């Protein structure tokens, strides 16, 4: 299989170079348009914040990885990116890499299932642009299946691996039903905003925001449809909340142990979760000594993140096993696709030689011998082709060494000059 693949990712290039080649959806569509015309007969382009990848079948012989690299570098006018910033794949390697990407084991954040969705979206774009041919469609079906199997059959995507998700996981270990709980987010910077959005997605009952710059809090509150408290009076309302997430850029502590003690008295010591995800910390850590106060700072949340990442790393061999199974299945299919036309081409070729020679010499035989001649020559051809046919059929049944099978088929095609027929076959597909 002549499937080419190139990838620039977190392992091959620093963030500025990855950014330089990042493609928006519109850019992907434009690049597909250019690629379709000159370089690839079918393919797929994937671009996320950590990787940009192109896979495809070359339009003609002689097209290499370098052509794909130059295509994207020129498209993005990214002169700083060089050849070393790319990983290059061909045939089985390309398929394997795509499967690794789809399962998230190639991601910076192992098991990140965002990438699975992004791969599916890229496939939809390819289909819409008529860039996904017979082979790419089948390849993407397999990639989606691998991704789903990895999620369902292993724990590769389980557990929180970001601080915000870890905070939500922790809250869920204390409270049974988030829809009956209320949260106050102090500080509406990026971290606070992400935490607020996670909690809203998990169905938190009531969400309120406060921020030193009131307008900023108001803006996010409008987006999330939540209440806002002015920063100088928010402490008066603390007791109304079961969860407090603090993520301000304040240099000093904004909630002291006394503040929390007062709050707890007003709450009649109903459990209170405090997630202090600010650096430096916003809440006095001594408040963890108060009964029913569950105080966690960024360090303790990072413990959860690291533990979950370690668990995910332990799942990688299971995912790799699934990838190998699906790779074998994919190449079995691909080889079976190749074997049948090769047998037919081989038989057609021998039959054409036989018919031609019999035709040339038919007049040298008497009327009654001509029928025998047909039978005998056909029998000879059948006997000669019996063993190669059996061997070729075996290739389609073999589960391993799929690349080797492809090699055998291509040698037979070259030896008997069947290459032209193969190209015709591919074009038909």
């Amino acid at each position, binding site marked *: 299989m002549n499937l080419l693949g190139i990838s620039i990712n977190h392992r091959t290039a620093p963030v500025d170079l990855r950014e330089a080649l990042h493609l928006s959806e519109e850019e992907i569509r434009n690049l597909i348009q250019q690629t379709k015309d000159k370089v690839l007969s079918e393919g797929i382009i994937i671009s996320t914040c950590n990787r940009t990848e192109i896979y495809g079948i070359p339009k003609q012989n002689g097209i290499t990885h370098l052509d794909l690299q130059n295509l994207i570098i020129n498209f993005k006018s990214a002169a700083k990116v060089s050849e070393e910033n790319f990983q290059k794949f061909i045939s089985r390697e390309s398929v394997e890499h795509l499967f690794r990407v789809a399962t998230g084991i190639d991601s910076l954040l192992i098991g990140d299932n965002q990438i699975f969705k992004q791969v599916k979206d890229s496939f939809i774009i390819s289909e819409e642009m008529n860039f996904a041919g017979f082979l790419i469609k089948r390849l993407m079906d397999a990639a989606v299946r691998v991704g789903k199997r990895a999620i369902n059959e292993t*724990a590769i995507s389980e557990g929180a691996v970001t601080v915000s998700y870890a905070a939500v996981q922790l809250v869920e270990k204390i*409270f049974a039903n988030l829809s009956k709980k209320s949260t106050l987010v102090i500080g509406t910077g990026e971290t606070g905003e992400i935490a607020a959005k996670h909690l809203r997605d998990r169905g938190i009952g009531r969400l309120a925001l406060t921020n030193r710059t009131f307008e900023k809090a108001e803006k996010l509150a409008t987006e999330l449809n939540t209440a806002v408290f002015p920063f100088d009076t928010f402490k008066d309302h603390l007791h109304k909340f079961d969860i407090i997430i603090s993520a301000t850029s304040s240099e000093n502590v904004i909630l002291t142990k006394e503040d929390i003690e007062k709050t707890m008295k007003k709450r*009649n010591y*109903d459990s209170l979760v405090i997630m202090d995800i600010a650096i430096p910390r916003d809440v006095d850590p001594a408040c963890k000594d108060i009964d*029913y106060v*569950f105080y966690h700072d960024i360090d*303790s949340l990072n413990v*959860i993140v690291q533990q979950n990442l370690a668990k995910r790393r332990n799942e990688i061999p299971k995912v790799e096993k699934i990838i190998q199974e699906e790779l074998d299945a994919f190449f079995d299919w691909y080889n079976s696709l190749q074997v049948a036309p090769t047998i037919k081409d081989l038989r057609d070729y021998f039959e054409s030689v036989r018919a031609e020679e019999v035709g040339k010499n038919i007049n040298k035989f008497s009327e009654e011998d001509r029928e025998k001649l047909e039978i005998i020559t056909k029998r000879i051809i059948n006997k000669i082709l019996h063993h190669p046919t059996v061997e070729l059929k075996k290739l389609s049944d073999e589960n391993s060494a799929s690349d080797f099978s492809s090699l055998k088929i291509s040698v037979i095609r070259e030896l008997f000059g069947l290459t032209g027929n193969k190209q015709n076959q591919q074009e038909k597909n």
Partner: protein
Amino acid sequence: MIPFIHTLNALLPFFYLITFIIYLYDFQKGGEKFHNSKRLFLFLTLLFHFLYLMLRTIQFDHPPITNVFEIFTILAFSISFSYFILELVTDIRGTGMFIIIISIIFQTISSLFIQDLTEVKEVLRSNLLGSHVFSALLGYAGITISAVYGFLYLILYKELKTSKFGLIFDRLPNLEVLEKLSFYSAVIGFTLLTIAIIIGIIWLPQAFPNFSYTDPKLIGTMLVWILYGIGLINKLTGKWRGKKLIILSIIGFALAIFSTILTNFLARSFHSFY
């Protein structure tokens, strides 16, 4: 039939042990391997145990409720059976090993010391005794489960307070659920024990005319009952919650067990049947 009863008697602790090991494995490893099948193991163990109890009743012509070792086997059954129902109703599957281990203890003691009695004291051949023992045992199962969940609550509470995120954090249900499980089990246990006490008091004067109000069994039982009563009133009026109630439930359970051991083995009480 007797050899078969003896075989079952010897095997039951091992059945509970195997079920416990499967629950333990599932607790440690997680994943899907024994997620559903462990419930089947528990069900089969309970089925064999039920068969054993039925066969004993038929063979020895009385339900196995006439001495403490007979009671222990029913207690082992009641605790695991109550947990089984709880698991089916709540679908909380991560806590089975903590309950089943208690059944192992009671069943092992019972299997070691139980005797094939066909002669039963005349006083124990009473219809009221059946309902008294039945409600008392289910009541004990309730307060045992309440204490176990209470204990798990305290462990998880401590892990969460000290930011330790180990197996307990991964596998146990959340604090609110543990608190609820402990509370509702205590309510059920308290109600059934109350019924057992009422039946006991009705039956007591006719069965034991010479009983004394200062009998250790009566004092112990009343203490346990008052303790749970105080806890329930304070919970229902919203005064107590969380740790305080749970510690009370654990003390109540310890006191109930201590009182049972004291009255049946050590002190001279009308309730000493062994």
